[in-house]
Every structure is written in C-alpha cells, then in structure tokens.
C-alpha cells in the first residue's frame, strides 16, 4: 500500500504526534524516503513542533494577579443588590463620629430654626408642601429684612440724638467750674446752646416713642 503526497500531508500531524498505527507508520516512512518534497515538509513540521513545545511560557506582569484579585474579590461589593446596597450605604451611621456629627447638626438647627421663625410646636405636615415652604421662607426673609431695616433706623436715631445731646453736655462741663454764678443769666438768654438742647430733649423722646416721620416700622 502506498500513500499519495496529499495523504501524507493530511496525516503529517498523526505521524508527528505518533498517532499512526505501526503499519501506517511504515508506509508513511517509506513515502518520505522516496519523496524529497514530503520529507522536507515533514522535517520542517517536526522541527517546528519541537520548537513550539520547547518555547517556555511568558511571565505575566507582577501586577496582573493583584489586579485580578482586586477585580474579583473586590468586585463582590460592587455586585451587591437590593437591601445590601441600602445596608452598605447606611453602614457608617452606627459609628460614634457620625453620631457626634448628627448631634452637632441637630443642635445647630435647634438654635437656627427659631431665628428663622420656625416653631416646631406649631408644625403641621402641610407645612412641608413646596408652596408652603416657599411661602414660609419668603415670609421669613421679609421679616428678617424688615427687622434689619428697623434696627438700622433705630441706631441712626440714637446716633442723631447722641449728636444733638453731646454739644450741650460738653459746653456744660466747660462752663461748670467758672460760671456757676452766671447760670441764671445764661439760662435767661434765649438762643443759648444748652437751652436749645434742653428744649429739644422732650421732642426727641417723643420721636423715639412714636417713631420718626418716614421711618419704616
């Protein structure tokens, strides 16, 4: 029995891997002995196979194993779903640091909310409606503005009164040591500075009580 070159080529790997039956191997070897082309091809394939088997594996980068571990064992957390996600989100809450922070925020709000005009004793659920929240904030802002304006105006009035009173007291101090005897004379003179201040005091007190004209209350 003889094989053609095509058959030899088809069974070349069987020959290389020693998968041929003994009689097939003999026939194969006989063909190679008489065919230079097939023999050269067989030699090349045998050499190549040996070289491939001898080729040592490449070393993967040292960071690869770590990256794989990070992605797999570290990836489990990313894969959590449902209530586990909620639990993971809430996990810092039992910590003392978080509790202290929450306590500080609560105390801050307790101090801040009365200033803004919020009274928790009068709280109603309807207050949480966006329209009501807006209305409440708007009212609070207007109130704060009005109080601020009132405060500034009152300061201005006090400053003006002080300015009006100060010249009189200073002149009184200057006049006190040497003009005790002249007090009566001066008092009698109309248009005197001290007299003017004294005359204006009741008027200023009245202005403070009833408010200045054009002042916002």
């Amino acid at each position: 029995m003889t094989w053609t070159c095509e058959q030899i080529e088809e069974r070349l790997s069987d020959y290389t891997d020693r998968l041929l039956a003994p009689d097939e191997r003999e026939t194969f070897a006989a063909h190679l002995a008489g065919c230079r082309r097939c023999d050269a091809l067989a030699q090349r394939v045998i050499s190549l196979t040996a070289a491939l088997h001898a080729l040592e594996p490449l070393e993967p980068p040292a960071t690869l194993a770590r990256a794989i571990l990070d992605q797999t064992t570290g990836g489990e957390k990313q894969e959590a779903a449902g209530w586990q996600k909620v639990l993971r989100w809430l996990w810092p809450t039992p910590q003392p640091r978080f509790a202290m922070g929450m306590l500080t925020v609560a105390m801050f709000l307790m101090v801040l909310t009365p200033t803004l005009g919020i009274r928790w004793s009068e709280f109603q659920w309807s207050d949480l409606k966006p329209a009501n929240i807006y209305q409440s904030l708007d009212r609070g802002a207007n109130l704060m503005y009005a109080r601020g304006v009132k405060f500034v105006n009152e300061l201005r009035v006090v400053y003006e009164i002080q300015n009006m009173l100060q010249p009189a007291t200073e002149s009184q101090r200057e006049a006190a040591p040497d003009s005790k005897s002249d007090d009566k004379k001066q008092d009698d003179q109309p248009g005197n500075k001290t007299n003017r201040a004294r005359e204006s005091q009741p008027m200023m007190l009245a202005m403070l009580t009833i408010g200045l004209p054009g002042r916002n209350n």
Partner: protein
Amino acid sequence: MQRHTRRIYNLCYRFTSNRHEAEDMTQEVFLRVYRTLRSYQAIHGGFTTWLTSVTRNLLIDHYRRTKHDRSTDSLDDEERGLTEQIPSHSRTPDQMAMAGQLGEQVQRALGKLSPDLREAVILRDLQGLEYREIQDVLQVPEGTVKSRINRGRIELARLLEQMGVRPE
C-alpha cells in the same frame, strides 16, 4: 492562581500578539469565571478545560469585535521592539537571545494564521492540551481538530520558512 494566570495570559498573548490586550483579556477571563463559577460542572471536563473554553470564547468575541481595527498580518509597532521574556534558569545569554528571537518570529507567524488554525496550534503545541480536551474547548468533532492542527502546523512551518526562520 498564579499557574492559571500564567496559562491564560500566555494563551491570550499568543492569540492577540499584544501584551496589553493579553492583560486585559486575562482579567476579563477571571472576572467572567468568577461570575459564572456556579455554572461550572465537573462532568463537562476538567477545570482547566473549562477555563480554556471561557478564554477561547472571549478571545473569539474580542477578535470579531476588533476585526475592523487591525490587520492580521502585522504586529503593533510597540510589539516589534519587544523580545520574549523567557525565564532562563539554565540558559546562556546566546541561547536566551536565540530563543527570544525565535519566540518573536513564531509569534509573528502565528499572527498571520487564520483564527481557527491559530487557536488549534496554540492549544495543542503551546498549551499542551490533548486532542480530546481541544475538542471540548472548540466544540468541534475530533476529525476537525486534527485537521486544523495539521493545517496550522504546515502553514506555520511555511510562513517561518518564508521569513527565513529554521527552527532547530
């Protein structure tokens, strides 16, 4: 873990001819394995065969995905300058250089093979799998496996001859 990492990395590198892609693919393989570990059944072959199947499927997916982005007959410029990093406990520098050169040339020739022939040769001659295991990995009849390995070797030998490389 280290053993499997090295094996999968080598399989990916031999198929893609690109170290960065091989690294990414290896990570992807282990991520896939980690997620689908429950689906592994010992009756379908050993763990190594299953792992190789997962790798092979990802490699084929990657090959199809990137088919338009590259030509199979060239390596990246970056890869041209690289030589094989072969562990060399008992080799002389000359032997190392020759082995590195041969490895690089074999890699270039492998890159020119069709994916079917390339994976068959890699699995048989570089990964050392048995025919039966390759049949399980590729999900093709034994005759097809033999035929692909045979044609792959002949084609690779011809390519190396054209490149002037003669493995000793």
